[in-house]
Structures are given as C-alpha cells and as structure tokens.
C-alpha cells in the first residue's frame, strides 16, 4: 500500500486586517474543498503554546504558509519553531497583482470578497499540487 503524504497549509492569524481574514478563509477552502483529504493544518500559536509534537509539524508535512500581509508571520514562526516552509503565499501581493481591493471588514466578507478568497485558495491549491508533484504523490 502506498501512503500519500499530506501537505500542511498554515494561515497567519491575521487579526489586524481584512487580508488576514482572506488568508484564513482561503486556507479553510483548501482544507475543506480544493485539497480535502490531502492537506492538514495547525493553529499557528500552537508552535509556541504547544509541545514538541506541534513543533514537528513542518518536518512531518511539507508546509505552505498563507500570509495576510508582508510581515510573513506564518513563514517566520514556522521556520523559527518547526522547519523550512515549502512555499509562501502572500495574499496582499496576490490581491495587488489582480487589482483587487482588500476587504473592508475583517469580520464579514462581501460576496465579491469571497470570490477573491476563492481565487487565493486556488493559488494555494496550485502550490500544494506542485509540492505533491515534486514528491511524486
């Protein structure tokens, strides 16, 4: 039997702005839909609040960090406590490239903003697919 390694997808917490909300929702879309069953996640603060099990995460799963802004908290925290990230998706950069405005609310996204979150999720799923390809999954 061949075991397919799962890919980690870790969102920044992003409470400071609506881009963090997009990051989080896009991550959930990947986990629930676009790459369901092929991806796993972890709450970022567990790297500091959890135990050694949590800190093994990025060593056990090739991990994509999904960042709301250029501070790249997820990437930096993962690499500080757990291991190298396989890829980083910068939501702010993606939206700028598409000419899309950041969400006005950090609590509730509009229908248009949800479509943008879905586009971000598709980019994350593409990165996951590339990593799977590299692993010959």
């Amino acid at each position: 039997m061949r075991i397919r390694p799962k890919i980690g997808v870790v969102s920044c917490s992003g409470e400071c702005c609506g881009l963090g909300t997009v990051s989080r929702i896009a991550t959930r879309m990947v986990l629930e839909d676009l790459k369901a069953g092929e991806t796993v996640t972890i709450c970022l603060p567990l790297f500091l609040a959890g135990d050694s099990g949590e800190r093994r995460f990025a060593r056990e799963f090739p991990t994509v960090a999904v960042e709301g802004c250029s501070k790249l908290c997820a990437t930096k925290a993962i690499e500080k406590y757990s291991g190298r990230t396989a890829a980083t998706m910068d939501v702010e950069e993606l939206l700028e490239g598409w000419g899309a405005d950041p969400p006005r609310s950090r609590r509730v996204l509009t229908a248009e903003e949800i479509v943008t979150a879905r586009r971000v999720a598709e980019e994350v799923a593409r990165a996951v697919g590339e990593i799977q390809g590299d692993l010959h999954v």
Partner: protein
Amino acid sequence: MSEDTILIIPCSGIGKPFGTIGRDATFRVVDELRRGRAETNCLSLLVMGDEEATRQIRGSRCIAVDGCPLECARKNIEIAGGRITAHFRVMDLLRENRGLRPRQVTFLDEDGERLAELLAQEIAVKVDELEGQR
C-alpha cells in the same frame, strides 16, 4: 500605546468553529460594540517574537479569548510578558448554552453567530468594567 489600552487577543483556532467564534466576537467588540475603546492585534506577531507587538502587549491590559482548552491566546500573551485582566473561553460559553451547536468553521452557521454575539456582549461588558477601573 498607553497602559490604559485594552487589547483583546483571540486565539487563531482554525480547525473547529470555536476559534472562529472567538475571533468573530473580538471583531464585533473592537469594530462595532466598543469601537475606539479596545483594540486587537495578530496573535501570530507574538508567536514570531515581533518587538512592537510585544511592547504593545506589555503596555496594555489584555483580554484573552480562547476557543479550545489549549488556551493559545492566554499562553502566548503570558509568554510575551503581557498582563491578562480577563480570560474568556468559548468552551465555557458552549456549556452555558447547550442548545447551540456550531458546526461550520469557515463561515459561521446560525448557532455559531449566536454564540459569537453572546461572547461579544460579555467581552464588551468586561471592557466597560476595565474602563471603570481607570
């Protein structure tokens, strides 16, 4: 950043609805119910050791909002040297409202929204209390 600043920090729980509820409740307080009277910031800034966020935490009265028993918000605030003046746990709210069963994580369902609303009201009352202690 004044020492009187009230900083509400939710956990970043992403695996179950409880983290989403804590986060939603926090935004309801800082952006709506007590706008301008309390602030929030990214918990992940503390995790990566951001100096500015650490200074902010140390110079504020912190309210931790945790989704699950692992209490990441409380623990990370304490590790950063912050002063916790109140601690809310979504699990406690669930015990008090057993009829509400949130299931959705990405977008809260009706029960999740109701719990977020109830939690936000409790946090808002705490903000009022803390302001009264100035």
